[in-house]
């Protein structure tokens, strides 16, 4: 016997809106079905209800009853986003999830006993997770989608129809819940069939003979069976939250405030699916119709909202949107959490989420081009470096260990380090009879005490910018030993570092 769970949100359009803007709950707010003047009120906050507004009232009437109440049109996009968020919640406990066009989410609860103590506990978990997403739900579990849906609507919170008792549960409800077509509904009414229980007592064969395929379907659903399986929704890989702003946002702080809420929503949904956030793609709708797309990525996949907000802040501070922002779409790309085997003898490195947060703060402090890993570039130029991204899961190879010193020797040999000059310093070099006599550059200079060289280096002749250098190591009278070179092509002297 299949077991189907149904999640239903009362006042969906209101809840979907409050999910995006929780502060509106304390306002007198009502929602119409779309038409500005002739529309009908479909939902309202408690304050609006206290002011006398009721469901079914026309907008013009509502305005007359309470002039202070703000009346908004329902937005299909906001409702769809709420439904997708609800489906993500269901995806956290079931592989088979279907979004119904009537604002219900169904999930397959068969085998739930293997994971949860009872179906009641499963329903409690679903309700708690949906509330975490800002959607208070009612939940019903039964043998069919219709049974679960009716159970959800009839429940104050959670209603479990025991297996095999769905037919009895549905019996007292009106036959209109089965959505018969108009012809079938007329025929049933003429027979005096008012409840699902009355319909279920009729023989299925005779019903099919008189009502055709529609009759077969009605008979099966009245008996608590589904006529079609769940339409499976693929497991989501990206999670989207969006908001359209009532006014343009120019400053960074209010923008971050809104972004934090959207990122929280995305991260919560990713977390509920047992995944982790790999990157965020943020699309800003700009005043004047333009868009600004940003892709930010933490140093490691994380579910820490603070870290992600810090990374986004760093990105926006370094490059703010060119125009005031009128709308934001945050798309969170997810990935499976990768287990890591720690080393027995190796100390634990920085935690990935903490490292990501720290790197983001350092980028804010120093600039994105001044934080990372310095590597020698894949070139023969001795002074060429590149800045890479620092990652904590870069395992050392055996070859990186410096050679073990030989304790038998009194003098230990160590590789001499160079302090680079960035940018390189142009020099004036005085020579006489092929010998270097005096070197002068910005910030240093002196008589040449000793020197070694030249070491000639030519390369990249296959590119548009080949180099040809003659390197010298010079000890100056100021006490430093500098690495300098003569650029043969440009006929100039350069200092690119000092040994230290």
């Amino acid at each position, binding site marked *: 016997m299949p077991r189907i769970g149904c999640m239903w949100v009362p006042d969906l359009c209101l809840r979907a809106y409050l999910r995006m803007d929780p502060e509106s709950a304390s306002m007198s707010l009502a929602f119409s079905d779309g038409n500005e003047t002739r529309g009908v009120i479909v939902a309202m906050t408690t304050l609006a209800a206290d002011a006398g507004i009721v469901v079914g009232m026309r907008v013009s009437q509502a305005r007359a009853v309470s002039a202070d109440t703000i009346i908004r049109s329902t937005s299909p996009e906001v409702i769809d986003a709420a439904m997708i968020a609800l489906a993500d919640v269901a995806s956290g406990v079931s592989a088979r999830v279907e979004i119904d066009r009537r604002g219900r989410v169904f999930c397959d609860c068969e085998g739930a006993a293997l994971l949860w103590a009872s179906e009641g506990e499963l329903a409690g978990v679903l309700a708690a997770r949906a509330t975490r997403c800002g959607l208070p739900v009612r939940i019903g579990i039964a043998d069919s989608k219709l049974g679960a849906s009716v159970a959800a609507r009839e429940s104050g919170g959670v209603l479990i129809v025991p297996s095999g008792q769905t037919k009895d549960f549905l019996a007292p409800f009106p036959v209109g819940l089965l959505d018969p077509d108009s012809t079938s509904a007329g025929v049933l009414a003429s027979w005096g069939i008012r409840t699902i229980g009355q319909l279920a007592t009729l023989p299925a064969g005779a019903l099919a003979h008189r009502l055709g395929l529609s009759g077969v379907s009605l008979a099966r659903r009245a008996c608590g069976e589904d006529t079609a399986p769940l339409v499976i929704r693929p497991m989501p890989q990206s999670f989207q939250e969006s908001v359209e702003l009532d006014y343009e946002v120019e400053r960074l702080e209010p923008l971050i405030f809104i972004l934090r809420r959207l990122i929280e929503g995305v991260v919560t949904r990713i977390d509920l699916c047992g995944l982790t956030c790999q990157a965020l793609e943020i699309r800003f709708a700009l005043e004047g119709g333009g868009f600004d797309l940003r892709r930010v990525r933490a140093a490691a996949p994380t579910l820490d909202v603070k870290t992600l907000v810090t990374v986004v802040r760093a990105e926006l501070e370094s490059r703010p949107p060119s125009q005031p922002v009128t709308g934001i779409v945050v798309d969170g790309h997810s990935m499976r959490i990768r287990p890591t085997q720690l*080393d027995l*003898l*190796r100390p*634990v*490195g*920085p*935690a990935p989420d*903490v*490292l990501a947060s*720290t790197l983001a*703060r*350092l980028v804010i*402090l*120093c600039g994105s081009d*001044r*934080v*990372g*890993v*310095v*590597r*020698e570039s894949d070139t023969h130029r001795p002074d060429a470096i590149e*800045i890479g991204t*620092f990652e*904590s899961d*870069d395992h*050392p*190879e*055996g070859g*990186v*260990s*410096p050679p073990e*010193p030989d304790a038998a020797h*009194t*003098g*230990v*040999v*160590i*590789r*001499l*380090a160079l*302090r*680079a*000059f*960035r940018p390189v310093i142009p020099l004036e070099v005085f020579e006489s009879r092929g010998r270097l006599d005096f070197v002068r550059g910005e910030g240093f200079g002196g008589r040449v*005490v*000793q*020197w*070694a*060289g*030249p070491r000639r280096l030519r390369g990249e002749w296959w590119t548009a910018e080949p180099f040809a250098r003659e390197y010298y*190591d010079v*000890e100056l009278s*100021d*006490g*430093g*030993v500098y690495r300098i070179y003569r650029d043969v092509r440009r006929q100039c002297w350069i200092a690119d*570092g*000092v*040994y*230290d």
Partner: protein
Amino acid sequence: MVTSGDPLALRIRCDLRNPDRSRLPLAVPPLDAFLKGGLPRGAITEVFGGLSSGKTTLAHVVVAAAIRTGTFAAWIDLPNAFHPEPTSNRVLWIAPRDAITALRAAEHVLEAGGFQVLILDLGGRMSSRSAVPVSRWLRVARMAARRDVVVLVLSGVHVAGAFAVLSLEACAQHRRFAGGRGPCPVFEGVESSLHLRRSRHEPLPHLSVGWRALAED
């Protein structure tokens, strides 16, 4: 099977040789003997000295010692003079624009945890300790103690004041140029010495130590 060149064997040997967890051994016997087993963890050590005195080389030795144990190091590079070494993939490089930012960056790194060594290279730009408020040094010293991190400050002059548990002066002794005044002499390296200028906790056995660093070619 674990061979003698295996990284696992190296780590085991390193751990067995270093029962004193309060110090980071540098695997350079004269320096380790001079420092009574290595640089103190959870404290600020300061190395200052003039041009080509070997202080940057010493910092690279400390970083290599930390990385050899499989951990990470951070290098705060105020003069933007860091030259990469083969082990630099495990070194977080930060190039702040001023000394105060450098110490704030140090606080962030120490707060993150997971780094065994933090090099704070202040270069020759800081001519006195007044360039950085005392409170910044205090915060770095406390966080280093809490995280058990070796903080090594490099500078041209003595800047860390009383916050440095150990204050060492690097001095250049001799520059080795082979070939003398021949047609193509070769720079072999420098000989340096390390002098103890201040030790807060305990007296060190020797007042100075000499060591030699060779140029790459």
